C-alpha cells in the first residue's frame, strides 16, 4: 500500500529521529571508547573519576559531595568494585561531559565578529548531520509497522532516509560545506591561534577533498551509478563476469579502502592529520575561543563526520550490508547460499548488523590510529596528499575504467 502524504511525512520524521538518535548516542559512547581504547593502548587506566567529592553520594560529609558530579563520581567508584562491569567504570564520564558542555559559560570574545562567531558552529553541525540524509543503513525496509499500529499500520520503516539517485554526490557536496564552519569560526574569533589553525585546516581539507573524491570515483566507475544503495549492493555482491576481473576488482577495493580511509582521516581532522588543533603549537586550533555549547557543536560535528567516513568506507569498500569485505561476498554466496545450516545461509543475506559492525570497527580504527601514530608536519601532510595520494587515486581510476571496459 502506498502511504498518504501525511503518513509519509510522519514516517520520514520518525526515521529522521531514529537516525539522529543513533548518531547522538554514538557520539558520547565514542568519547568513552576513545578514553578507554587509548588508555589500554598506552597502558594506563583512562578516566576513573570526575570532579567532585571522591565518595560522592555518600551521605553527609561536606556540602560539595552532594553535587551531581559528586554523585557521578560515587557511581563510577561503585562500578569499579564489580569484577566484570568494572570495565565500564569510565562510562558515567559522558554524562559529566555533557553536563560540563551544557553548563559552561558561553563566552564571545570582545572583538569577535558576533554574527559569524555564532553562525560557524551551526554551519559545521548542519553540514555534518545533513549528510546522514543520504546514507543508507539498510537497503530495504528495516521493519513493517504491525497492521494494528494506529495510523501507520502495515507501512515500512526504511533503513535509509532518502534514496537519491545522486546520493554519493549529495554526501560529498554537503560535507564540503562543513569546512566553512572551521574557517569562518577561526576568522570570527579574531585571535591568532584560531586563524592559523583554521587556515591550516582549510588548506588540508581542500587538498584532501581531491583524492577523497577520486578514490570514491572507483566504485562509481565500477558500478556505473551514484545511488548509495545501488552502489554499495553492487560493490559487495556483484558476481564478476570472469575470475580475473573479480580478482582485479577485489584488489582495487582493497587498495582503495586504505586510500579512502587515509583521506577520510584528513577530512575529519583526526590524528595523524590534526594539525589544525596541534596543541603544542596552536593551543586548540580553530576552536580555541569557543566554549560551552558552541564548542560542543564543533565537537559533535567532528565525531559525526567520523561516523560518515566510516559509513562510506564500509559501504563502498568493506561490503556494506553484506558480511564479507572487498567484493568477496559472491564467492562466499556460491558455496553457502543453499547451505542446510540456517546460520550459514543467513550470512549470505544483507543485514543492518554487518553494516553497523563495520562502522564500529572503523571507529575503533580511528581511535587506534590516534593512540599509535604521531602527527604529520605541515609540509609532509601536503606531500602525502598531492604527491602520493592523488597519483595513486588517478592510477586506480584508470584501472577501474579498464576493469569496467573488460566487464
Amino acid at each position, binding site marked *: 500500500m502506498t502511504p498518504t502524504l501525511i503518513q509519509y511525512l510522519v514516517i520520514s520524521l520518525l526515521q529522521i529521529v531514529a537516525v539522529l538518535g543513533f548518531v547522538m548516542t554514538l557520539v558520547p559512547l565514542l568519547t568513552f571508547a576513545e578514553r578507554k581504547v587509548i588508555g589500554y593502548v598506552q597502558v594506563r587506566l583512562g578516566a576513573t573519576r570526575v570532579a567532585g567529592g571522591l565518595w560522592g553520594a555518600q551521605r553527609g560529609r561536606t556540602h560539595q559531595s552532594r553535587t551531581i558530579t559528586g554523585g557521578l563520581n560515587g557511581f563510577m567508584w561503585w562500578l569499579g568494585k564489580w569484577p566484570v562491569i568494572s570495565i565500564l567504570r569510565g562510562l558515567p564520564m559522558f554524562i559529566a561531559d555533557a553536563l560540563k558542555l551544557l553548563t559552561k559559560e558561553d563566552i564571545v570574545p570582545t572583538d569577535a565578529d558576533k554574527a559569524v562567531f555564532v*553562525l560557524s558552529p551551526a554551519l559545521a553541525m548542519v553540514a555534518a548531520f545533513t549528510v546522514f540524509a543520504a546514507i543508507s543503513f539498510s537497503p530495504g525496509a528495516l521493519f513493517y509497522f504491525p497492521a494494528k499500529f494506529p495510523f501507520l499500520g502495515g507501512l515500512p520503516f526504511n533503513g535509509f532516509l532518502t534514496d537519491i539517485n545522486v546520493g554519493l*554526490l549529495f554526501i560529498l*557536496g554537503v560535507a*564540503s560545506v562543513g569546512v*566553512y564552519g572551521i*574557517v*569562518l569560526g577561526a576568522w570570527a574569533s579574531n585571535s591568532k591561534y584560531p586563524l592559523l589553525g583554521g587556515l591550516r585546516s582549510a588548506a588540508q581539507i581542500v587538498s584532501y577533498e581531491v583524492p577523497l573524491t577520486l578514490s570514491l570515483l572507483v566504485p562509481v566507475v565500477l558500478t556505473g551509478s551514484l545511488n548509495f544503495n545501488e552502489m554499495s549492493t553492487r560493490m559487495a555482491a556483484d558476481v564478476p563476469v570472469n575470475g580475473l576481473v573479480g580478482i582485479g576488482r577485489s584488489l582495487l577495493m582493497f587498495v582503495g579502502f586504505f586510500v579512502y580511509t587515509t583521506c577520510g582521516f584528513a577530512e575529519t581532522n583526526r590524528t595523524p592529520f590534526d594539525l589544525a588543533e596541534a596543541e603544542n603549537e596552536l593551543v586548540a586550533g580553530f576552536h580555541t575561543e569557543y566554549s560551552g555549547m558552541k564548542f560542543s557543536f564543533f565537537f559533535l560535528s567532528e565525531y559525526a563526520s567520523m561516523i560518515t567516513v566510516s559509513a562510506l568506507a564500509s559501504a563502498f569498500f568493506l561490503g556494506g550490508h553484506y558480511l564479507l569485505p572487498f567484493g568477496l561476498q559472491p564467492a562466499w554466496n556460491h558455496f553457502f547460499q543453499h547451505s542446510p545450516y540456517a546460520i550459514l545461509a543467513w550470512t549470505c543475506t544483507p543485514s543492518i548488523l554487518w553494516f553497523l559492525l563495520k562502522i564500529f570497527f572503523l571507529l575503533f580504527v580511528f581511535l587506534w590510529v590516534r593512540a599509535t601514530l604521531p602527527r604529520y608536519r605541515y609540509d609532509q601532510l601536503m606531500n602525502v596528499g598531492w604527491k602520493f595520494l592523488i597519483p595513486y587515486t588517478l592510477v586506480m581510476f584508470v584501472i577501474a575504467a579498464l576493469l569496467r571496459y573488460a566487464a
Partner: protein
Amino acid sequence: MEKLLVNIGQNLFVLFGLLAVGGAGVLIFSKSAVHSVIGFLFSMICVAGCFLSLQAEFLGVAQLLVYAGGIVVLFLFVVMLVELTKYQEKGIFQTQTKFAIPLVGAGLLIFGGVFRAALFGASAEDALTLQQGLVGATENLGNAQAVSRGLFANFILPFEILSVILLVALVGAIVLAKSERV
C-alpha cells in the same frame, strides 16, 4: 496547506530564488569582505536549492560541490589573507561609478526582458520543467546520465573548447603572478 504542498516544487523554487537574491544583496552591500563571501555562499547554496526544486538533482548537487564546496572556499581564503583595509585607504574601490551605473541599467533591462519572457511569455509553461529533449535523450534517463550524455556525446566540441578557455585563464593567472616576481 494542501495547496502549498501540492505545488511544493514551484513554491520552493520561488523561495530559494528569493533567498538567493537576498544572499546576492548581502554580497554586494555588506561592508566586511568576509560577510560578502558568506552572502555569496548562501546565494550559491540557494541556487543549488533552485536546481533541486526543478528536479535537476545532478546539477544542484554539482553546484553545491563545486561552487559552495570549492570556489567560495578559495574566495574566503583570498579575502582572509589579503588585508583589504589597506587598499580601502588608498581609495581604489568605488572608482568606476560612472561606468557602473549605465552598465547596471543595461543589465537590468536585458535580464528583466529575459525574466519577463521566461515567466509570462509563450514558453512560460515549459520553462520550469526539465526538458529531456534538450540533451538529445529520448528514453527516460537518470539525471547524471542525461547530463553526461549531453556533455560528452552531443556537445563534446563546445565542452572541450570551454575547457581550453579555462586553461587560458589559468595560464594567464600564472603569467601575471610570475611577472611580478622576476
